Each structure stands twice: as C-alpha cells, then as structure tokens.
C-alpha cells in the first residue's frame, strides 16, 4: 500500500463511526486547547507584569537597605543618594524615598489616615511618573524644607473633589502644606497605588516626620536613572563600590541591595513560575488523558473489527499493512483533534482576553507545542492497539464474531 492508500483506508475507518471518532478526539481537542489557553494566560500575566515593571521608569537602578545584615550598623542614608548623584557617572538623575508614619491627612473637605512619601526633585523623571497639573517641588524647596505637597491623581479628588487643589492647603499630621501640583493618572504599578500617594520634600520628612529619633536621614529606597541601557552595568558597579566604601563594608557582603527592573521582573517571574508550571501540568495531563482515550477507543475498535482485520489478512494484508492502518487512524484522530483543539484554543484564548479581566497573549510556539504533543500522543497511544491488531492470527480473526 502506498501512503495515499493508507490514508484512505484510515479515513474510511474513522468516518465509519463518526460519533465515536468525535468523542475520541474530544480528549485531544480539550488537551490541545487547554495547553494553548494556559500558555496564553500565563504569557498574558507575564506581559502585564513586564509592562508594570517597565513603567517603574526606564533604565532604573533601585538601591534598598539589605534587611537582616549581621553587624550592619548603618543603613541607607540621604547622604548616600547625594553621593551617588555627585560621584557616579552615566546617570541622569537620583531620587530618594522615605515615607512618614501613618498620619491624619486633612483638607477643608475630607480627612483620612495615610502616609506621605518624602522624595526629591528628580522623582517624576527618574520614576516616570509625570506631573499632570501644576509642578513638582524643586531642589531649592527641598533645601529650605518648604512645606509644599504634590498629590496623586486619586487622592487629589478624595481630598478636594471638584475643586482645583492647587494653592489649597492640606494638613499632614499637624503641619500645613500648600498643594503645588497634581500627578498624572498612573494607577497600580507592582502593587503600589501611585494615584493614592502624597509627595512632600524628603527633607521635611527628616525634619518633621522621622519614624524615630534614631532614624536621622535614613531613606527607604534610592532610585538612580542610568543614561541608557549601556551605562547601566557601569553605573551599578560604581554605586556598589561607592556605597561599600561609604558603609565600610566588603563588596561581597554589602548591607544594601542594588536591583534593576530586570531583577524585579525575574523575581516576579519566579512567583508566577509555580502557577505556570501548575497550568502546564494540568494541560499536559489532559493531553495524556486524551491519549489514553484514543488508546482505549482504538483497543475497542480493534476488538470490534477483528473480523475486518481477518478479512484483510485473508486477501493478503501483511501485519505491517494492518499496523499502519490502525496507527494512521490513531494519528489521524489525534491530528484532526489537534487541529480542532488549536482552533478552540486560539478562539478560547481570544474570548478569555476579550471578555474577562484576564489578559491573554497567544504564543505561536504553544500552538506548535500543543499540536506536536497531540501527534506524539497519537503515535504513542496508537502504537499498542495497532500492534495488537497486526499480531492477530488470520484464522482466529476470521472466526471472531
């Protein structure tokens, strides 16, 4: 038999019992669709995370104190930020951040408990959080600990409703601040609600809201923006050696951590990796279950068609002819099922993405992967029944009722 004859015979075998063939394929259809949809969902989640991290700011270097460093007497200080700005080459801006404790924030309209974020003049550029209305505070205002505040988009509405907040007064704790600007809408980035923040000069935080007497000019985070992707590595090295020197620690056991967006993406990816591998397992198992379904039906089919096999053998079909016939049937079932599964998977991913708040990104290689797995499953689970058919004895097969 040549290839097209084998295909023809297998096709006739499949179409002889259409409903059963369809039910057999269902396992593969679901398996393939599941693989594609699962991968689309995790790719969508990853894309969302990546976008969020990128919107932290371009070419961002993040310096934080290392928690639990043994013998670390000093922590990250505002003077460290100033030193970075002065001494490190290849950076365009440095911003430091330190929060107040939770305080009452009051306007003429509303009052609630929150924290204010003390930061520096470079903050909007470095962190890619543009000012919407008014302006951000300047280095001069920072230097003279001016009592000025810039409001997040959301908190401005909470505090002042329809009124223009600029020029108004907010009371943070017991200190009165003049509102000089409102940030553009930013939303949630890496779990921080930027629209809910209140920015004040960091020097005011040191002066008025230091978390404890000992804290001094301690900062939570220093952000530095590299000139470009290329200067990142050199800037990081300079920052590390500078801080190690200032903190009097060894470079290989620092009391601070220097990260980039890429590092944060990696950490975030690690947290989704478990979720993703779970999805992959679910999808993989459903493919295997689909394969077992094919094997099961093929075994039933071989038993049911024993007489047909005997007839074919009696007119000259060799064991190989029979093996190929049933293997091709199994393969055809899984490939046709795989094809339908691809359509269902792509369609399903699209519907998930379009209807829910779940983002999906269809990954072309996932289609290949799912379809390829279906083919492998077909051959793998089809071989045993096909071999069983091939090994039937002609006379016993003919005698089978």
């Amino acid at each position, binding site marked *: *038999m040549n290839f097209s*004859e084998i295909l023809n015979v297998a096709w006739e075998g499949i179409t002889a019992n259409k409903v059963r063939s369809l039910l057999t394929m269902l396992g593969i259809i679901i398996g393939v669709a599941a693989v594609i949809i699962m991968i689309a969902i995790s790719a969508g989640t990853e894309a969302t995370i990546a976008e969020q991290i990128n919107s932290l700011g371009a070419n961002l270097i993040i310096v934080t104190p290392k928690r639990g460093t043994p013998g670390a007497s000093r922590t990250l200080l505002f003077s460290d930020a100033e030193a970075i700005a002065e001494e490190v080459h290849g950076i365009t801006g440095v911003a430091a951040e330190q929060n107040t404790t939770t305080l009452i924030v009051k306007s003429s309209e509303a009052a609630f408990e929150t924290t204010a974020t003390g930061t520096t003049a470079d903050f909007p550029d470095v962190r890619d959080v543009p000012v919407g209305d008014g302006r951000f505070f300047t280095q001069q205002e920072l230097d003279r600990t001016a009592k000025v505040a810039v409001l997040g988009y959301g908190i401005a509405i909470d505090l002042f409703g329809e009124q223009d907040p600029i020029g108004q007064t907010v009371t943070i704790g017991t200190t009165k601040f003049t509102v000089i600007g409102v940030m553009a809408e930013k939303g949630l980035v890496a779990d921080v609600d930027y629209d809910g923040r209140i920015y004040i000069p960091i020097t005011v935080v040191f002066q008025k809201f230091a978390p404890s007497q000992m804290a001094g000019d301690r900062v939570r985070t220093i952000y530095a923006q590299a000139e470009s992707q290329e200067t990142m590595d050199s800037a990081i090295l300079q920052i590390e050696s500078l801080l190690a020197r200032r903190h009097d620690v060894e470079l290989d056991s620092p009391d601070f951590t220097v990260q980039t967006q890429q590092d944060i993406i990696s950490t975030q990816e690690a947290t989704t990796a478990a979720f993703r591998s779970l999805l992959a397992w679910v999808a993989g198992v459903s493919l295997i279950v689909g394969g077992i379904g094919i094997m099961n039906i093929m075994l039933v089919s071989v038993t049911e068609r024993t007489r047909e096999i*005997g*007839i074919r*053998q009696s*007119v*000259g079909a*060799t064991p190989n002819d029979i093996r190929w016939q049933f293997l091709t049937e199994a393969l055809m079932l899984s490939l046709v099922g795989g094809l339908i599964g691809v359509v269902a998977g792509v369609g399903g991913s699209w519907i998930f993405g379009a209807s829910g708040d779940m983002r999906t990104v269809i990954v072309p290689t996932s289609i290949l992967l799912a379809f390829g797995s279906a083919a492998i499953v077909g051959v793998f689970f089809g071989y045993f029944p096909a071999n069983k058919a091939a090994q039937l004895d*002609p006379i016993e097969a003919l005698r089978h009722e």
Partner: protein
Amino acid sequence: MNQQPIIQTADLRKIYGMGDIAVAALDGVSVRIDPGEFVSIMGPSGSGKSTLMNILGCLDRPTEGKYILAGEDVSDLNKEQLAAIRNRQLGFIFQSYNLLSRTTALKNVMLPLLYDQNNHRSNEEREEMALAALTAVGLADRVNHQPNEMSGGQKQRVAIARALINNPSLILADEPTGNLDTKSGYEIMDLMHELHDRGHTIVMVTHEPDIAEHTERVICVRDGKVESDGRDGANHCAQPSPAEGRR
C-alpha cells in the same frame, strides 16, 4: 502427466490443545493436486476439512508436515511471506462470504489489489479490474451496493469476484454453497464450473454429495485422515449421508 503439482502435502498434522486434551484435527494428510483439477473434499462434520483448507489457503500453519504450493515450500514462511502468497497465488471463498459489510461490492473486490506488493496499480486501473471481475460473475449492476443490501447468492458472487481479481493459481472454497438455498447454490456451482473450464484449479469443501458429484475428483476425509480419493463421484465416500436418500 508429469507436470508440477499445484498442491503437494506430506503428512500434514494439526494438533489443537496440549497433553490430555490434545485433538488431532489433521492426522497425517498427504495429497497431490495438479493444475486444472476441480476437487471436492467431503467428510463428516469435525473431520478436519476446514482445518485442511485453512492450511492449504495459508491462513493457518500445520503443526507438522510439509506443504508445497506451486513448487514452493510454504511450511516455514513467515507472516509477511504467507500474506503475499495469499494475495497473489490464492483466492479463498468462505461459507460466510467474509466481505467488508460497510463497503461497496466494488471496493470489496478491489481489496486484494490494495495489498498487492508487486503491482502498484492506479485507483482507476483497480476499479476497472474490479468492475470486470464483477461483470464476469454477473453483478455489473450491483457494483455500488453494500453486502448488507444483497442476497446470499449475490454476496457469494462478490466473494468469488474478489477471489479471482489477482488471477490466482488456486481457488479454495470452504462450503461456498453452505449458506445458500438450492437454487443460488446451483448458480454458484455453475459459476465454479465456468471458472474450472477457464482453467482455474479449484478445491472445494462440500457436505452435499450431489454438489460433489459435479466435480471430477472427490477426496473423503475422516478423523483427520484421507479416507478415500477417487474420480467416481461421491460414491466411494463410505459415510452414510442424509443426502443419499435424496438422490
């Protein structure tokens, strides 16, 4: 005549089961059949006729003994080689037709051509050959019917067309009229004679002496042995047959 026999067996034995329950379905059968012969095999039920036919048809293998088919020793061939022999040298006609039930007469007849490893004919060629074979058995108007839409006689004629399609050197028929009424049975026998007249070698099992009567040679089998072999019709078969009173 000193031509090469088409069938030559030596001491064929077929043992079913083992030990105490072993049954010798064939117990030393040696026969020779020459090309062009039309031979009937008779014998009581369970005497081993079908067992012999299946071995002659290369569907089954003897436990012991030699079988030389058209000069080739087929006793030790493997499954692939036996399949090729069945395909090209043999045409088997069964009592129960053994047609693919959801396949048209044409495709049933084409089936042996599909498994012909030596000749790769196009589909058109195969259809043409099958159509010719069906026409030869008088079924030109039933080519696209499925077996379940046909009478027993028609089904058997499809089976005969299928057996003929590869122009085999030997036609084996195990009770080809066994499932048919008398009239269809005679029609099938007429067809068999026609094939014989055209030069085919035919070995046929039958229960009915009046059908065996039509053949030139009758071999009688009893308890797995050849009891008698003669050219005087069914008379030499010793067993009392219910059909004897009928004649």
